[in-house]
């Protein structure tokens, strides 16, 4: 019949099977009809029974071999092969019992053929354990139907043997009348049987050998294991057992799905890492109070980092916290800085530095966060505001828009008490700073203290000032120059400034602006975002108080400056330190002022600048820096910060240094001063200095000296490493920069000694 191209009808392929079936059935039927009756009568009735069973067996196996799925692999889904289709190699090796077996890529079925699988061109399917394609059954012989094929062969052979044997008996017994019908038919049947006897027996014997060897026809014919070992053999008995007794394998090509997938997918989904990170993340989040959730991958990651950093730093000084926050701040500079600021602020509400940190939050805590009592109120507050604005820039990137205030709030609650203790804070700070080298501990103390009130406040204030100044420094620079810089400051500070001691690497910018904040952060979770609501109100209150504190600070700073001028060597460092702090303050003020230009700030700034004796040199530098800051504010923060730093460096240190260098110097300076208080020093400085100066003029300097040296040495390396952060911290580094120079050395010492020690410790 005509075959259309579309149809797959190929009559030719049915000829062998039709012939085989016809021959089998016909011959057997004739045998049974013509030969068996006589045999039944003459020999035994068991003969037809036996033959009948054999024949039935043959038919059954023949049918199974013909109609059973040999183990066809369904085509692979597109999802599975999308990677392999074009780029996959043709062969893939797999190890089977120590022997490398090659799996070939099937272009039709789109998967790598499992071992012993082959693609049948007649059936156009990959068949599992492919043996051969038998035309007599018009089917592939594979895993599922090999047993039936083998049994078919066996039974067919037995049947043929029986037919021929019994026919012979009949013929021999009817030899006199060979022309008789029955005899003729029997002889015809015997001829047919005899004709196919040799091929069938031969094939049967062949397959018996294959079965005992555990090979397939395909493997035997292609000579795969000719010289080697067959990895699929199970031993003679095992192979026979496998062929004859193994359970019937399932069909793979199943059209309807076996069972509907009743599993429901309900996002959100569990993640193992979430469970692991839950704690740290929480900590961070709560610290910041900015991040709303873990949703922000960036924030999350950064948070993780933040957490890690601050945590690693341990009970670092508040500055550290900031630093760490800044470190992580790379991604989310704001939150950490904000946090730290907040925490810092909390401790010392009056501290203007707090304001500075505040700006970090995009939200408006423009009003002084907490540091109303802090000295650098005006500038700080202003700075904060400006910083806020600046920070906002950075923060928005962090996606912390709303939480900032919240975080601030948390900070705020404690602030009022702090303000109360502000007066002591300086003294306490110095004491605490000196007493404990562990800033973190202080922070820790602060945290709980904050809520408590006065007694803790001193610690807190200590921290706060340190932190704040550092922060301010960093913030101011950052905020001025780079919105993200505050974070940057913090970050570098943290990493560089191992909270452990300010000597260490903290000199880096991180130290400057990023007092390690781990403690604050850790605390903040406690304080948490809850207090957000009240904070706005607090801010207002703080502003008033802050102004007052700022005024106080101014006075103190004036005093400090005077003292400094008296003891240049000692106070040089502190002066330098102060300068940065004041600078930072100024910066902050500038920053804040930039956008707003409050007169007050400038006034304060001027006071701050003019105060210290050595500051004379500084002042110009500061002023320039400030101006640069202001300019920086208007311009891109980063560049300005660097310029600022450069200015500072130039002013303070001999030999202009590249921005990096300037960064370094500031960092160096800062680290020595209060490693932990990169920020606070800025505003803390004046206060602390004032206090310390009066109280401990001598010891601190020595301490500062000692610190300076190690610090000075370390920072450069650290700075280099911290370059990215440093860049950000640029502004923060600025103040330290000048200190770094020889004058800085002195300044550094001084700071450490008088206020520096305090700073550092607190930082």
């Amino acid at each position, binding site marked *: 019949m005509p075959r259309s191209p579309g149809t797959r009808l190929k009559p030719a392929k049915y000829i062998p099977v039709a012939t085989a079936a016809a021959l089998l059935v016909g011959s057997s039927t004739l045998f049974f009809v013509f030969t068996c009756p006589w045999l039944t009568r003459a020999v035994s009735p068991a003969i037809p029974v036996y033959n009948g069973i054999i024949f039935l067996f043959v038919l059954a196996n023949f049918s199974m071999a013909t109609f059973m799925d040999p183990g066809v692999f369904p085509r692979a889904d597109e999802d599975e092969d999308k990677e392999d289709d074009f780029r996959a190699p043709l062969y893939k090796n797999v*190890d089977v019992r120590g022997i490398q077996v090659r799996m070939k890529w099937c272009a039709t079925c789109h998967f790598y053929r499992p071992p012993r699988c082959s693609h049948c061109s007649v059936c156009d399917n990959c068949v599992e354990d492919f043996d051969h394609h038998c035309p007599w059954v018009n089917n592939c012989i594979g895993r599922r139907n090999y047993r039936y094929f083998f049994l078919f062969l066996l039974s067919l052979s037995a049947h043929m043997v029986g037919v021929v044997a019994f026919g012979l008996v009949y013929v021999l017994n009817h030899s006199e009348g060979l022309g008789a019908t029955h005899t003729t038919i029997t002889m015809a049947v015997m001829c047919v049987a005899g004709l196919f006897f040799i091929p069938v027996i031969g094939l049967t014997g062949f397959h018996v050998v294959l079965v005992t060897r555990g090979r397939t026809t395909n493997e035997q014919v292609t000579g795969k294991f000719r010289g080697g070992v067959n990895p699929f053999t199970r031993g003679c008995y095992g192979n026979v057992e496998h062929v004859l007794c193994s359970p019937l394998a399932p069909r793979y090509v199943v059209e309807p799905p076996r069972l509907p997938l009743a599993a429901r997918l309900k996002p959100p989904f569990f993640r193992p890492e979430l469970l692991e990170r839950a704690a740290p993340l929480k900590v961070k989040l709560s610290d910041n109070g900015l991040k709303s959730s873990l949703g922000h991958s960036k924030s999350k990651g950064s948070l993780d980092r933040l957490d890690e950093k601050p945590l690693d730093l341990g009970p670092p000084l508040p500055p550290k916290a900031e630093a760490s926050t800044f470190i992580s701040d790379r991604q989310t500079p704001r939150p950490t800085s904000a946090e730290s600021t907040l925490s810092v602020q909390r401790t010392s509400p009056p501290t203007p530095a707090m304001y500075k940190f505040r700006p970090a939050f995009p939200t408006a805590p423009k009003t002084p966060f907490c540091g109303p009592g802090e000295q650098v109120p005006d500038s700080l507050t202003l700075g904060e505001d400006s910083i806020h604005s600046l920070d906002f820039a950075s923060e928005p990137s962090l996606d912390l828009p709303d939480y900032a205030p919240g975080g601030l709030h948390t900070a705020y609650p404690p602030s009022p008490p702090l303000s109360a203790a502000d007066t002591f804070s300086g003294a306490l700070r110095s004491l605490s700073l000196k007493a404990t080298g562990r800033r973190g501990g202080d922070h820790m103390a602060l945290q709980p203290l904050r809520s408590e009130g006065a007694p803790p406040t001193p610690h807190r204030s200590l921290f706060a000032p340190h932190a704040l100044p550092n922060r301010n420094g960093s913030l101011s620079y950052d905020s001025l120059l780079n919105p993200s810089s505050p974070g940057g400051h913090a970050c570098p500070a943290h990493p560089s400034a191992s909270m452990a001691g300010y000597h260490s690497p903290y000199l880096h910018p991180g130290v400057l602006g990023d007092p390690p904040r781990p403690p604050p952060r850790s605390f903040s979770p406690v304080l948490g975002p809850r207090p957000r609501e009240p904070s706005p109100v607090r801010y207002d209150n703080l502003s008033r108080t802050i102004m007052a504190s700022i005024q106080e600070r101014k006075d103190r700073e004036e005093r400090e400056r005077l003292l400094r001028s008296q003891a240049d060597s000692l106070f040089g460092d502190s002066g330098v330190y102060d300068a940065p702090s004041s600078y930072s303050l100024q910066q902050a003020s500038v920053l804040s002022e930039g956008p707003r230009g409050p007169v007050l700030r400038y006034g304060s700034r001027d006071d701050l600048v003019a105060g210290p004796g050595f500051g004379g040199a500084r002042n110009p530098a500061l002023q320039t820096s400030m101006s640069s800051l202001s300019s920086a504010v208007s311009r891109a923060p980063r560049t300005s910060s660097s310029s600022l730093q450069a200015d500072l460096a130039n002013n303070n240190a001999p030999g202009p240094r590249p921005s990096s260098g300037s960064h370094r110097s500031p960092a160096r300076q800062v680290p020595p001063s209060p490693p932990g208080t990169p920020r606070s020093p800025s505003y803390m400085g004046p206060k602390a200095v004032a206090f310390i100066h009066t109280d401990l003029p001598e010891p601190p300097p020595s301490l500062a000296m000692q610190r300076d040296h190690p610090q000075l040495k370390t920072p450069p390396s650290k700075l280099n490493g911290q370059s990215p952060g440093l860049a950000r911290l640029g502004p923060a580094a600025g103040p330290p920069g000048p200190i770094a120079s020889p004058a800085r050395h002195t300044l550094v010492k001084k700071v450490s000694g008088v206020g520096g020690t305090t700073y550092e410790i607190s930082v």
Partner: protein
Amino acid sequence: MATEVHNLQELRRSASLATKVFIQRDYSDGTICQFQTKFPPELDSRIERQLFEDTVKTLNSFYSEAEKIGGNSYLEGCLACATAYFIFLCMETHYEKVLKKISRYIQDQNEKIFAPRGLLLTDPVERGMRVIEISIYEDRCSSGSSSSGSSTGSGSSSGGGVGAGAR
């Protein structure tokens, strides 16, 4: 209604198919059905290693039980031979019984362990016992939840719908 459901779906964060991981067969012991217990890196953040390995090992044990040559399979073969394989029309084989058990196990695992993690196991039988397909879903706040479900099976989408309805 449809609109409401759609809105619900949108509100509800729907899962969408992100990628599929394929656990390949382990041929180190011949052609017996075994799957690799190597933990795929794509699942690193989605499910604990131990859970995954337990699942695969359990599946491997199921398959080895299904393919075990023992008295049960021998008797089945003899019976089948004796009845000229007509027995296959009436009774399911030992292998098929184990496959059903595997299917139930996979479904159970999906419901309890994988689906909450945004994963879905596909029965290897549907893939010719060559791979275990694990579909990884990402929760996305989008309304295209059904599309992912359909790719892996009608059940998932229906399950999602049911889940939506349940919610």
